[in-house]
């Protein structure tokens, strides 16, 4: 701890260095609010949307906590990009910082993965269709694409198993990897020390150093406070919304991903046919390989951006390209009146749903009540007798046994009089099993027998 605080910062503290610790502040926010959300969330297609709606509309402060988590994820992407750009421009991946840089690149992918997996979890229309498109992209990968998509969706369609997988990835797998990589990232940082400003090595060596604490810590701290304040204000003033539940049948829905996936979304429009492989596999992989491998390509000790035109221009080109793709996507949606109107209508529907009071999810009646719903009135009364007289204790909720209980399937094929006689005076194995003579009135016994004859007619 003391070592970390006294870590010398060459050239003194700077505001340019705050992004890394800013990310840690947001990470803490994501963990705390994420654990909160997990208290109410159920990752299953028939409950996920209701639980998020319940949090949004019923639980105290639910909308606010969810807002902190949702806006936090966006803020994390912003900070990551700034952190990456700053490190890149300062050439801070050089001089024994290769592993530090590479761990950071992998963290970048993992955070994007968190965004992708978390986006599906509310299971509203927006989430459903954005993920439908996202997972369809995987299918374009040659050879293994079909398998990858099916594996991620747990089948050809998206459903409760998909949600379960995304949940496990979002809550267990990716966070675990993120923790490991952050540990590595911080470890490598401590090994290499702070990189300092991008000057010539001989100039940098002459620079006075300042310990990490207090000035750099103070700057990081102020930045963190500002971020938390921003998140609080955003969540309070512009609460997150939840749309109507996902409905695969709604084929008119126009899906749009979260803002940070818009460039990728737009990029895909330009590739079709055999070129699609280049567009969605070759180029993205190449770019990531370049990013990951930049410390090995840009090997000179020179760190000044002006003297490293090729990498700096490359980054600028990719940056401008990505940003303009994003704007292009937004602009196209605005320009096309049909799409524009549809998106506006979707948004209005979402806001309307969001304002409507919470409706608890109706559970289908279970056990005897469910059986009773399909029976004649006499047999329905009998079903309740079956439950209340303790019959279900030994024969299962609807007489089908299971779990070591004694099934009565097929018993209903016997004549009513025979069944009534048996219930009044149990025989052989029944007595051995502890069956007692029924003391129901004749009318009730007739109802019980009616139930047996209607519900347990067929042998298994």
């Amino acid at each position, binding site marked *: 701890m003391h070592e970390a*605080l*006294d870590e010398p910062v060459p*050239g*003194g*503290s*700077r*505001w*340019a260095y705050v992004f890394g610790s800013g990310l840690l502040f947001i990470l803490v926010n994501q963990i*705390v*609010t994420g654990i*909160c959300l997990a*208290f*109410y969330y159920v990752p299953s297609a028939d*409950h996920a949307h*209701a*639980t998020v*709606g*319940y949090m949004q509309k*019923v*639980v*105290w*402060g*639910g909308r*606010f*906590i969810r807002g902190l988590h949702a806006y936090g994820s966006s803020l994390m992407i912003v900070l990551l990009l700034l952190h990456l750009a700053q490190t890149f421009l300062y050439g801070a991946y050089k001089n024994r910082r290769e592993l530090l840089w590479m761990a950071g690149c992998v963290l970048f992918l993992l955070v994007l993965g968190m965004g992708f997996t978390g986006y599906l979890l509310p299971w509203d229309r927006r989430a459903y269709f954005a993920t439908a498109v996202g997972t369809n992209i995987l299918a374009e990968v040659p050879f293994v694409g079909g398998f990858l998509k099916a594996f991620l969706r747990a089948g050809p369609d998206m459903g409760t198993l998909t949600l379960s997988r995304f949940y496990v990835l979002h809550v267990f797998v990716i966070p675990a990897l993120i923790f490991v990589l952050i540990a590595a990232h911080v470890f490598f940082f401590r090994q290499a020390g702070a990189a300092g*400003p991008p000057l010539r090595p001989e100039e940098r060596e002459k*620079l*006075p*150093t*300042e*310990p990490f*604490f*207090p*000035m750099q*810590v*103070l700057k990081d*701290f102020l930045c963190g*406070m500002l971020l*938390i304040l921003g998140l609080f204000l955003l969540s309070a003033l512009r609460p997150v919304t939840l749309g109507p539940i996902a409905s695969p049948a709604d084929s008119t829905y126009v899906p749009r991903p979260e803002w940070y996936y818009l460039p990728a979304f737009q990029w895909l429009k330009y590739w079709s046919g055999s070129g699609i492989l280049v567009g969605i596999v070759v180029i993205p992989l190449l770019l990531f390989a370049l990013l990951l491998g930049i410390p090995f390509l840009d090997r000179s000790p020179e760190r000044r951006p002006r003297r490293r035109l090729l990498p700096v221009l490359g980054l600028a080109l990719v940056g401008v390209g990505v940003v303009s793709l994003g704007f292009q996507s937004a602009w196209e949606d605005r320009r096309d009146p049909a799409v524009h109107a549809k998106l506006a209508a979707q948004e209005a529907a979402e806001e309307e749903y969001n304002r409507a009071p*919470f409706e*608890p*999810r*109706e*559970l289908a*009646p*279970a056990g*005897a*009540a469910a059986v*009773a719903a399909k029976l004649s009135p006499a047999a329905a*009364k009998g079903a*309740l007798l079956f*439950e*209340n*007289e*303790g019959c279900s204790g030994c024969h299962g909720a609807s007489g089908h046994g299971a779990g070591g209980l004694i099934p009565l399937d097929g018993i209903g094929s016997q004549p009513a009089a025979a069944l009534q006689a048996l219930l009044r005076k149990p025989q052989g194995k029944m007595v051995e099993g502890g069956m007692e003579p029924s*003391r129901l*009135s004749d009318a009730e016994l007739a109802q019980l027998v009616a139930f047996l004859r209607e519900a347990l007619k067929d042998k298994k």
Partner: protein
Amino acid sequence: MSSGPSEPVNREPGLGGQGATRRSFFGVLMAAVSAAVGLVMSVPVARFLVFPLFGSRRASDWIEVGDASGFVSPGPMRAEILVRRVDGWVASTAKRAVWVVRREGGQLGVLSDVCPHLGCGVPWRDDEKIFHCPCHHAKFDPSGRLLGGPSPRSLDPLPIKVENGKLMVQYQIFRNLVKTREVIG
């Protein structure tokens, strides 16, 4: 934006004097602000987590049992009611049985069929003219009063009213195994 290298900077940590004072001042300041922000942040989190304990619990609905004039039998009559229950984000409707009885004064009463002992459903024994719990043989008279057995109290009466000729009941769940009646849901 940046405090460049030209700005005076501390040479070495822990040199004492002014540096040490400034360092400890900032340390205390940041710790205090962190604590304050943590405290502020813990308020929505705490509210979010304790919600189920204090969230508004609605009084149970009035549920129709049947025509009040239809309950003419002198002995207890079994009636089935549909009870709607909201548990967090799910709602369910389940059938429950209640006993419509004549109280001592002759007016209608509705009893829960749940034994106050361990919660078994209590049936009416027409041959014995008593309520006789099949589990541990608690016995109650036709108005629900405890006659014997392990039950700590008589069968639990439910709030009723007659509206437009219909007998209505509020379904309640009671704590079992205690002498004094206590509504728990």
